[in-house]
Structures are given as structure tokens and as C-alpha cells.
């Protein structure tokens, strides 16, 4: 999970592990990512889950008749036949120059914007980036902090 979360930060990806980790661990890193990815892919093909739906504008009658595959002519040879994970990892890492920008960076926002390009990875990201790194929240309860999120605490909203 820690590995998956790190890989899905578009500023780190696999590059982070190449930079900071021992070479002989890298294979394991990739295997872990691949396994998780495949798990989510399988889930998408079960009827239970609804993948992020892309609402296309209603097609005209002519296009629906499938007379000629325009997309194939238009994008055919330009699109590489690589799967989503490989495309993501091969794409250059996101570089934010200022440290303020890095502090403010929200991976959830990034994945929201890129969900169309990487639908499965985005689903993993949405799941993973809300996992906390520490169990501070329950501890706050005991140290007397008010934990309730303001919107819920505000009784006017109720």
C-alpha cells in the first residue's frame, strides 16, 4: 500500500524508487504495483462496481450506423498499444518548482483531472490518498480536541 501510494504521486512515481531504493528491491516494487492494478482491473469487469462513466454527447444517427471508423483513421498509428499503468509510468513526472506549490499540491485534484486518461489508476488513487499516515485523529479525541468536522458540528446545518 505504501508503495502504491508513493507510485501514484505523479511527482514521484517509479523514479522515486530508482533514485532512493536498492536496485534489487525494484522488481518487488513493480510487482506490487502491477498486482494492485490488476486487482482493480478485475473489479471493473464485475457488474457490481460502476467505473467512472464518461458521458459522451449523443451521437448522430449517421455515426451510430458505424459506416466508417473515424477514430481509427485519426489516431490509429499514433496510439501506442500500451496499457494504462505503463503509459502512466512512462509519462514524465510532474515537476513543481516552488516549494509552496509542492506543499499545496493535492494528488486527489490531480487524479480528478486525469481520471479520463488513467481511469483505473484514478480509482486506486481516490481510494488511497484519504488513508491517514498516523492514528492521530482518534488520539485527538482523548487529548480533548474537538474532532468533528465544522460542517457537521454546525447545528444550523442540521
Amino acid at each position: 500500500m505504501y508503495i502504491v501510494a508513493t507510485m501514484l504521486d505523479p511527482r514521484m512515481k517509479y523514479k522515486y524508487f530508482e533514485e532512493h531504493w536498492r536496485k534489487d528491491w525494484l522488481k518487488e516494487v513493480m510487482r506490487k504495483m502491477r498486482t494492485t492494478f490488476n486487482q482493480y482491473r478485475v473489479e471493473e469487469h464485475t457488474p457490481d462496481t460502476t467505473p467512472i462513466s464518461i458521458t459522451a454527447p449523443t451521437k448522430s444517427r449517421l455515426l451510430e450506423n458505424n459506416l466508417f471508423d473515424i477514430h481509427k483513421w485519426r489516431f490509429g498509428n499514433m496510439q501506442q498499444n500500451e496499457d494504462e499503468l505503463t503509459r502512466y509510468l512512462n509519462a514524465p513526472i510532474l515537476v513543481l518548482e516552488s516549494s509552496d506549490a509542492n506543499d499545496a499540491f493535492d494528488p486527489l485534484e490531480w487524479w480528478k483531472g486525469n481520471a479520463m486518461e488513467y481511469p483505473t489508476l484514478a480509482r486506486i488513487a481516490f481510494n488511497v490518498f484519504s488513508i491517514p499516515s498516523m492514528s492521530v485523529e482518534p488520539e485527538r479525541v482523548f487529548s480533548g480536541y474537538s474532532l468533528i468536522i465544522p460542517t457537521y458540528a454546525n447545528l444550523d446545518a442540521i
Partner: protein
Amino acid sequence: MESESESETKKRWRCNYCPLTLSAATTSNASTHLRNAHGRTEAGKLPTNQTTLEENESKATVNSIVLRKLIVEWIIDRRHSFNEVEAESFRKIIEYIDKAAVSKLPHSHNTIRSDCLKYFNKAKGIICEHLSTARSKIHLSFDLSTSSSCKALLAITAHWTSNDYKAEATLLAIRELEEDHTGENIAVIIYDMAKEYHIVEKLGYFMMDNATNNDKALKSLNSQIQTDGGVGFDPIETRLRCFGHIMNLAVKDLLYGPKKKGKRRNGDIDEEEFVDNEEENIGEDESEIKKRTETEKKRWRALGAVGKAHNIVKWIRGKPQHRQGFLNQQVEKLKRKMVQADNATCWNSTWNMLDTFLDQRERIELYLNSVPELKDDKLTNSDWEDIETMMTLLKPFKMLTILGEERGTLYGSVSSILWGFDMLLDLLETERKKTRPEDAPFQRPWMHPGGNWINIIRRPINVRCILLPRCWIHA
């Protein structure tokens, strides 16, 4: 009477004088209630539609619903007793502000209690709704703590990605654990809570400290769910370990050296080594106590500069005369500041202690020279150097802790753990190479006893192995 419009179809009248609500299908219900229950004849003034209601409200000085909400908020926020509203002195304040408002105050603590429950259940419903539209699974974090009244309380918080792609967190429940703190008993509480919030089939990852009963809790929870015909989850894969707790252990190794061999068992690492034994001293005669505190002091002193600092702080803060004596040491241009005490549970307290030591160095040195009882704990120049080095080493830990605890930023997310660890290890390794001349005996007292840099470094690596059981086979 005011109309409560939760939804247009289920509009109801709410009485301003009691908690009753009535059907809004007709106005006669409401007027009958007012006449019978409160002896009022307001039939003519009753609003017949939304517009007239708003007019009425703007004329009213105190809205009883708002007033009651505010009172409940105040009582909860300040942890007041429910019968605060019954107090004559309180009612006098309200009466002074608005004479008419007194009649709108709840009369008894029972009303406050039922109001609290009412708002609680409404809030719970709202949270359920939020959880049901989550874009992620519902991750849980829970922690067991013993309250001041000796009750074992389990706090459970939820973490999820909201419908509009924000990382959210909220408290779901604080439940009392009446039986033994076993994993099974914890699991029962979690399961009940999950059923109440309808998240049994949506459970994601679990973030907890290193206690072994947490492992068992997840296994037990999973088997309970599966016994009931649910899908369940993978209790090993979904079990995450709190980064803060792990850092705490690493820092303790840094400060005091690793625990002695044999004392340490896997999963046991949360137990405290240095507990102040003051409560145990009750009933012992004075010489016993003195002997005890002396051994205690020696034990701390053996830990080096940090241990000495602990003894000094205990002395200074121990008696009002000592405090005054310390503060009265005149040092030019130095603000009078009390030294902070450390405690066993949280290394941040040790950080604060050392921080005040560096800040108040001159005053402390003056004071140490004037108190013969502290001669064994006198800090040498190399002790001061050690404290400074220690603070430099602890800075990244401190920063990561602050970042991890920060709300509203994604530093607190699980994606920060790996690089956090790697960074700490990297910095420690660099420091080790710098500080330790090859094969020379350890000179810094805080590397004793039995501890050395290699062990200190290895400890967090060990912890990493616990963290990632499947990925570190090669390590």
C-alpha cells in the same frame, strides 16, 4: 409555531413552547395544540404559508429553536453539566438580555439531554449520507485509551475521499470497552459501529498503533463479517501501522539507546520503559522512598545528557521553593522561563524540555552551581554539545510529526510514509558517518548503555520490515 421544512412533502409545525412537532397538512392541528397545551390563542396569527412565516420570524426577537441549539452547542463545547440551564444565576443573565427569552429556555436537564440525542442522531444521519457517497472505501483509525475515570474508551474515526474529491475525516464513535482489551472484544465494537453506519461492505484500510491486539481485532472482525455471510477483507494487507508511533520508537532509541535484548518482543514495542514511579511510593517509609528515587536518578543519569536533564527538571519543578530559586537566578537579557518537564508517553515533551534547556542554558548553569544536591547531574560542555546534536537529529522527526498531524494537507496521507522513512534513515546515516570515526569507541554518553549507532540505525530498518512484510524479503 414555525414550520420545519426538512422536505416539502413532510412539512411539520414545530411548537415554540415544547419539543412537539405536528403535521403541517392543516393549521388546525397546530392551533389546537397551542390552545390546549399552552393556553394561547394564536389561531389568527398563524402563518398560512411560507411568506407570512418569514415575516413573523423577522419580528421575533429570540427564536426558541435557535436558542436551544446554541445552548446545546455551548454545553457540549465547554463540557458543562446539563443542569446548567436550571441555575437561577444563568437564567438571570438571559433575563437581563431579553426578558421574553427566559420563557424559551429549556427548563430541565432532561430537555438538554433529549436535545443532545436529537442533534446527535441527525448528525449521524448526515455522516451516513456522506459515507455512502464516498469515492473511496471507508478507512478506519482507532485507538484505545483509559480515561481519567478509569474507563477504557475506544475512539473510532473514519477517513475517506468525498464525492467532490476531498480527503475527509470524522469521528464515528467513542465506545466503552467493558471487558478485557482483547482483539475479539475490540472487533465486536467496531462491527456494531460499522453496521450502524452501513459501512460493513465498504471497509478499506485500518490505521492503528503497533499493539498486537489490533492485529487480532482485524482478524476477528473479518471472520465475524464472513460468518454473517459478508465478503470481508484481507486483515493483513489492510492493517497499517501509525507512522507517528514508529517515529516515537525510533526517537526513544535515539534518546536513550535501544532497549536491552530479551526485553523486546515484536509488537510489544509500545510498552514504556521509563515510568515515573511516584504513585507506587505510597505506603513506603521515607528511607525507602529516598533509596528508590536515588536508584531512579542513577538510572536516568546513566542515559547521558538527556537523563541528567530529566533529573534536573524533576528537581526544579518538584518544589515551589526550587522553582522560585531557579527563576530568581538573574541573567541579563534572558527571559524568565520555566523549564519544561518531559513525560514517558510522548517524545515531543522531551523535545520541549531540551528546547527550554538550550534556551535557558545560562540560567541553568548558574542554578546548577548553586545547588549542591544536583552536583551529580551537572551538565558538562560535552553534555551541552550532545543536547545540541540531539536537537539537530530530532528536527526532521519533529517536522514530519507536525506535517503528519496537520489537517487539510495531504502530508497526512499514507503516501508520505515511505519517503518520510527514507529521509529519516538517510539523515541518520549521514550523521553516523560524520559523528563516528571508524572503529573508535563511542565517546558520546548518549550512545551508551549497550547501544551504538549501528543498533540505532538498524532499529527503524527493523520497523520497516514489520511495515512491509511482503516487500522486504530481500532486505
